[in-house]
């Protein structure tokens, strides 16, 4: 699980927690397609309206939906995915809260135009949307440290914040589970939206992986 603290200085802090399966599935997606860029959406539980001048209730990031691999910059399927996943979210009282991407090149972890565009779109519905970039160069089987960079939108720019194990609740569990799944090559069973479009029977909610995560808890 990880926590994102936003705007601490202004006293309006909102924390975004992530369930283990969100972090796992993100890394499994990157591991499944090492030669491609991959991206996906992060999904949070919908919270009631925040009171003004008080700390916002923490936002729980419950899941992630892997989207595409390879060419990320084409619009039509992205639109279909966003609309479909949005509908699914509404049925489950979730909201799309963020976007993740792992670039094609190992040493490149900066958000590109695609990332910023999608995040901007998500921000229309969820003002604290974040971009999570995977640092490919630190992706290992053991996952000893969190390998994501989190970018928030400040003053029209996307700025990264420090991420360390303190920002994670129960990091050790998440690390243990992710490592076990990578070793067991569970990524071979990970379904992204591209796989779903190739064969509609492929389920992008990944019930098989979700069960594996639960079994390992």
């Amino acid at each position, binding site marked *: 699980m990880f926590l994102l603290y936003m705007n601490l200085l202004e006293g309006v802090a909102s924390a975004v927690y992530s369930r283990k399966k969100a972090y796992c599935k993100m890394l499994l997606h990157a591991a499944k397609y090492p030669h491609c860029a991959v991206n996906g959406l992060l999904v949070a539980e919908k919270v009631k309206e925040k009171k003004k001048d008080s700390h916002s209730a923490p936002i729980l990031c419950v899941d992630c939906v892997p989207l595409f691999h390879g060419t*990320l910059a084409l*619009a039509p*399927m992205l639109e279909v995915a966003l609309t479909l996943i949005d509908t*699914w979210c509404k049925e489950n009282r979730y909201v799309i809260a963020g976007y993740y991407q792992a670039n*094609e090149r190992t040493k490149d972890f900066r958000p590109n135009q*695609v990332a910023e565009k999608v995040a901007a779109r998500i921000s229309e519905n969820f003002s604290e949307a974040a971009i999570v970039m995977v640092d490919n160069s630190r992706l290992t089987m053991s996952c000893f440290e969190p390998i994501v960079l989190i970018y928030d939108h400040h003053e029209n720019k996307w700025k990264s914040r420090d991420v360390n194990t303190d920002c994670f609740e129960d990091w050790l569990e998440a690390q243990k589970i992710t490592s076990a799944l990578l070793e067991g090559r569970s990524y071979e069973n990970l379904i992204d939206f591209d796989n779903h479009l190739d064969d*509609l029977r492929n389920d992008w*909610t990944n019930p098989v992986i979700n069960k594996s995560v639960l079994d390992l808890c």
Partner: protein
Amino acid sequence: MASVSELYDVGWEEMRDKLRKWREDNCRNSEQIVDVGEELISEHGSKLGDDIWIIYEQVMIAALDCSRDDLALTCLQELRKQFPDSHRVKRLSGMRLEALERYDEANKHYDAILQDDPTNTAARKRKISILKAQGKSAEAIRELNEYLEHEAVSVLYQSAPCFPCDFHSYGKAAFCLEELMMTNPHNHLYCEQYAEVKYTQGGLENLELSRKYFAQALRLNNRNMRALFGLYMSASHIAASPKVGAKVKKDNMKYAAWAATQINRAYKLAGRGTKENKCSVKAVEEMLESMQITMS
């Protein structure tokens, strides 16, 4: 660890045939290729005959993908022994150096090939890939453009779909896909990719073009879900546009409605019997309904 033949209860012929299928389909399932290929070569190498050389090549490239330099080197050395002066093997040596990020040395290999044979596409493609790997996108585009102007080589056009991703050059991607469609008129994937690029470029004219090509892709393969969704999206956007006349609006609403029916049918077919997929079916139905509201 159990061998592949034990795990999957297959004989060496099946393993060999599987490797051939992956070669023909240009699959990049490198981990599987390494698992199957390594076992095939070490346990049944003598039975493969001349097939062994192409298998060495296939396994070597897959090994590079999996950081198995030990295996890659073994395969390479066998190929060098058998084909000492081959450009094809020299290219493989270059690829190994690329995997080790020794780009200058790799480039020397490719330059040597090109000096001997200036028309060698493979070497030129590798040089452009090196620029891409180094993040030198602008130079990579320049090289690719220069080459495309002088040679009509479909192999290079096939790298076109990567253009928009890295190079934000949708126009160039469209151009390359047009060439690919001309030489491969029955390939539904090129039609569909072209339609996606046109849609992304935006604007009414491009949307209408994209709708036509999604429809064409469907004619070539009526199970292409991307084409079906694409037809639905493009027709819906055209119908919702304030710039179109009543007839165009009506026609596109018809196309969109047809596509929606097909999409729903496809999901119902896929969802038969599984509880989880029923949620997908419902989500799609709702999505299509919500979009129709914005159209009218």
